[in-house]
């Protein structure tokens, strides 16, 4: 692929093309895992692409570029989550962005916040595959590749994550309209 070849030759057009073509995808993966309120989101996106550009020689199969970027994004997010959990007591206060005119009604905002608060309470190795499965619809093989584990392992983690999410979600009143059984 032209992009991979160009990156190996340190050509600027390749880096521009990489960011242009895969920027929205990488942002989406990070949003799925971290939510949209994370103040370090742009820094994380930059870290993912910097690692990809700097480490392009590690990509042995140019056709797997997207999967490789997913892997880098997952590992980057995982590192940040683990790091934050070491000092998380005061980290819940994030900047409130200006609400756009067409913002969803407050109840959806609260529910969205609760979803990611529940994800914050989950072990990171359950949270990541679960959020990617839930939001991105990745299949087991894609998840296994992204997380660097076997399909069997990701299947086990997903099962635990689903049970944990259901148990935690039941305790959040703001999620009641979406999780209450009919």
């Amino acid at each position, binding site marked *: 692929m032209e992009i991979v070849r160009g990156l190996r030759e*340190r050509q*600027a057009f390749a*880096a521009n093309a*990489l*960011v242009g073509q895969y*920027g*929205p*995808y990488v*942002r*989406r993966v990070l*949003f*799925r895992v971290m939510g*949209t309120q994370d103040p*370090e989101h*742009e*820094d994380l*996106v*930059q*870290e993912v*692409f*910097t690692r990809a*550009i*700097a480490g392009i020689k590690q990509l042995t199969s140019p056709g797997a570029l997207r999967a490789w970027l997913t892997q880098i994004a997952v590992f980057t997010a995982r*590192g940040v989550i683990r*790091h934050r959990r*070491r*000092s*998380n*007591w*005061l980290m*819940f*206060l994030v*900047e*409130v962005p200006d609400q756009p005119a067409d913002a*969803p009604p*407050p109840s*959806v*905002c*609260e*529910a*969205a*916040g*609760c*979803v990611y608060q529940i994800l914050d*309470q989950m072990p990171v190795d359950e949270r990541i595959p679960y959020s990617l499965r839930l*939001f991105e619809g990745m299949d087991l093989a894609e998840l296994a590749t992204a997380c660097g584990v076997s399909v069997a392992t990701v299947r086990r983690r997903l099962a635990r994550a689903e049970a*944990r999410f*259901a*148990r935690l979600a*039941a*305790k*959040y*009143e*703001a*999620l009641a*309209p*979406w*999780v*209450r*059984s009919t």
Partner: protein
Amino acid sequence: MNDQRLTDLISQLKADQDTLANQPIPGLAERCMDEAWGPTVEFSVPLSTAAPFTHKLRWLLVPVTAGCVFLAGYLLATRTSRPMLQGKMGSDAIAIETGKSITATADRVLPLRFTDGSVVTVQPKATVEVARLTTSGAEVLLENGALLADIVHTPDTQWQIIAGPFRVLVTGTRFLTSYRPNFQSLEVQLYQGSVLVQGPMLGNGIPLVAGQKLEVGVGQAVVVRPLHRALASQPTPPKIAPLIAPTSDDWPSATASPMEKTSDLEPVPTPALLPATPTQPKAPAKPTSPALPANLPRSPDWANLADEGQYEAALEAAEAVGFTELCKGLPAHRLITLADVARFAGDPALTRKAFESLVKRFPRERYAADALFGLGRLSSETGNPRQAARWFERYLRDWPNDALVEQAAGRLLELYQTLGDDAGAVASAKYYLEHHPSGMRVTHAKRILSDHGVEANR
């Protein structure tokens, strides 16, 4: 669980995320190229007076982000030709990789030696991570256990030891740091030099000098006392293994064990506890909570499990004994631990029960402040903004000089906006600007007043 409805919620969240994801980040590709491949032109203009944007000087006009701070540091490092620190660990001198956990075995220490001559000795069973290496120091995360740090002083030395929410800023010292993640409690014993310890409960930071020991934990009093007196007065031996310094090899060697030097310390006058403002409630010398009732089943199991980080098992054990009974009978300092167990195990209802019990039974004890703040946070997280606002208001009323008052006042701004309570939002914005004129949420508070046509008083 209602799968269809949850699917609908997820679809809405996805749509919002996709909209944001499609927005490009200006200058991203260029910053990534510079960070990955290095600058294309050497410059002599200080970054603060950088030339206008040109094709070659493309890194100069960049927004201030953490990534660009790193880039500036990297450029400065290359411009001045100072090498980045490198580290090697153990007797095999294995190169240290940043971002990877390092755990010492149970029977020996693990020395980490750095090219500036500094040595960090990981004590038995402790886990650390070298998060970052720079030209003037390193950032080391202490996940649990203890480490002994011998940091070489130079005019530019900048080392940080991070333990949970606490930071020890180092410019050239020798000290022992111990961290218990289950209770978020930190201990720093300083043998040489000086450090600044930052984090919750510590205001702008507590400076320590040689011969002092600091003990702090979230929800606990901050204590600074002489090191040798602290050792003499400890009722039980410290839980860390005896300090052992690494032996020398071809890298700069460590100095002798600090335990040999403590006896040489002159008695240091006991520093005052954190200076109390006139209205700050006095911290009691001993917990005033009643003794545990004799008929309450002794249940060390839940506490032991909590100590090992097995929160879910700890909560199960506590529930087996009777969570309500524990809430009625435990002393304050154990009740806050019980609340932490419930919180880390992901049970907001039981967390709330423990916190509320603490506030009700021990309203004047320091732990009540943490419980009130915790209740506010919990109510926010579980979608009860009205209740959260009440807890934060009570926290501010009962503990107006506590460490987290600015956080609570800032949180009220968001909560009243979420509630659509204009009067509450204006009142909280005025309160914030009056009490925290230099706070992090000043812009937000002013915006609230401006949106409601109220002038901010200066």
